[in-house]
């Protein structure tokens, strides 16, 4: 595609999401709105590069999509021998507040807790991310037919169970927003472990949440967290594609602009949470400590551990304690950390618990490190990390 064609495609994709959000409200159906917007988008991609982008692209798409939706409804009514239900008209130049509200409705409907997490992820990428079903399937490494079925089932549930197209009330908002954030963060993590396209989508979604809710600490913290982690992406894999640990990454390759933006967002998030810490903001603060250290050895471990203590006050889980112990190992040495790690209950099926024991035991010169490593592999430690640990501990299973 030409440069101009690319620009049109980007514009259509960005506007398409907003147009979809409004059309869902107007038509009362995600399915119908999706069909109608897709039709309008196809027509825009055909005509805009040739005839030029219209003065009001959003209005053009809105009117074209509504037109299509009315057609579909009329045809369906005729088939059933019924009267078509009238559809509200659309305002071709909607005010920014109503566009924002429609987008928020779409966010909270796609990430409704009555939908499975898998369905939420698929819907978020499809409707909010504007990816095609084929693209969503590719991103999640699933066959297209499976993804199509999953999306259809989710949209059917929204329609038949009447999941409302509404922004949650002020008292529900924090818990519902936490649900949205965890869906977006899940998408980011899927991408972080290798599929960078997904990470980019998650960053887009997190940016969208901040633009919609600029004062919500969860949105600010989520965006800060994904940016501060994404900033390290250029250094996270070596030439052979194997993951590089934080301690060995070439920090000159980190994205300074993303780090700056992330750190500023942490500040904004902290100012909005003077009394009760927000888990996303605090996790972002921990990421910022790493990103701001000129070298691994110069990391401010006191600060990292303090932030973990703050995180534990709102999210006391064995996994958070395990991560805190890794920081303790750097500040106070491996035996202090091992005592903490060994004291954590319920992690015997968690590969990273065994991996962290293997690492600490190795630092203490204990031969039991190998046993811990074997347990880590049995419980599913990713192969690249297992190989890395094995190389460090200096043993080959074949010997």
């Amino acid at each position, binding site marked *: 595609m030409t440069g101009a064609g690319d620009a049109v495609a980007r514009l259509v994709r960005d506007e398409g999401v907003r147009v979809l959000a409004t059309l869902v409200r107007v038509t009362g159906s995600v399915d119908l709105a999706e069909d109608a917007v897709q039709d309008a988008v196809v027509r825009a991609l055909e005509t805009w590069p040739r005839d030029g982008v219209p003065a009001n692209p959003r209005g053009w798409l809105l009117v074209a999509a509504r037109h299509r939706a009315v057609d579909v409804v009329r045809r369906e009514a005729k088939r059933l021998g019924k009267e078509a239900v009238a559809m509200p008209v659309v305002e071709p130049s909607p005010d920014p507040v109503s566009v924002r509200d429609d987008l928020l409705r779409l966010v909270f409907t796609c990430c409704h807790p009555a939908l499975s997490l898998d369905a939420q992820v698929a819907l978020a990428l499809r409707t909010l991310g504007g990816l095609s079903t084929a693209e969503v399937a590719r991103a999640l490494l699933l066959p297209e037919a499976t993804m199509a079925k999953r999306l259809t089932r989710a949209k059917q549930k929204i329609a038949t*169970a*009447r999941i409302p197209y509404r922004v949650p009330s002020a008292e529900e908002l924090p818990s519902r927003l936490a649900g949205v954030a965890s869906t977006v963060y899940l998408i980011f993590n899927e991408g972080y472990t290798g599929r960078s396209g997904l990470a980019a989508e998650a960053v887009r979604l997190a940016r969208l949440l901040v633009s919609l809710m600029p004062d919500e600490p969860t949105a600010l913290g989520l965006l800060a967290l994904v940016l501060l982690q994404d900033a390290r992406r250029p250094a996270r894999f070596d030439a052979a594609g194997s993951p590089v640990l934080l301690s060995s990454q070439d920090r000159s390759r980190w994205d300074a602009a993303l780090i700056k933006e992330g750190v500023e967002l942490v500040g904004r998030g902290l100012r909005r949470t003077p009394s009760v810490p927000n888990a996303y903001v605090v996790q972002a603060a921990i990421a910022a400590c790493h990103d701001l250290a000129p070298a691994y050895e110069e990391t401010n471990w006191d600060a990292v551990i303090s932030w973990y203590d703050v995180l534990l006050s709102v999210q006391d889980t064995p996994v958070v304690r395990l991560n805190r112990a890794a920081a303790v190992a750097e500040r106070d040495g491996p035996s202090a950390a091992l005592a903490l790690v060994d004291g954590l209950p319920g992690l015997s099926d968690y590969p990273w618990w065994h991996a962290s024991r293997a690492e600490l035991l190795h630092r203490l010169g204990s031969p039991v490190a190998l046993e811990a490593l074997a347990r880590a592999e049995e419980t599913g430690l990713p192969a690249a990390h297992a190989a890395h640990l094995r190389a460090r501990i200096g043993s080959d299973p074949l010997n």
Partner: protein
Amino acid sequence: MPQYAAIIYASDVDPTRPEATDLMKDYDEFGAGAQAVIRGGAALYPTATATTVRVTGGKGGDVVTSDGPYAETKEALTGFYLLECADLDEAVKVAARIPGAWDGAIEVRPVVDFGK
């Protein structure tokens, strides 16, 4: 307005026994509070009184009856309400107040509207 069945899976007790007095008081309280949206419902005797009927070999086949429900589970179907609510969020809010939700679970399902 859409209707939902709120199907109660909870501990398998006999609602007519004196031991269930406190529980029934909770249900009465719920019923009074949710009067505006309750369109019907039923409380069931425990699964020990149930008979399961199957016809083997499809339509016209042999009728086989057996004692009780076919699966032993901790939570049994103890009853249901028919609710009329604006949307799923409202139905979920009402379902969360059903006493069975406190020691079991409520399955909220949209009811098919076959039209007139």
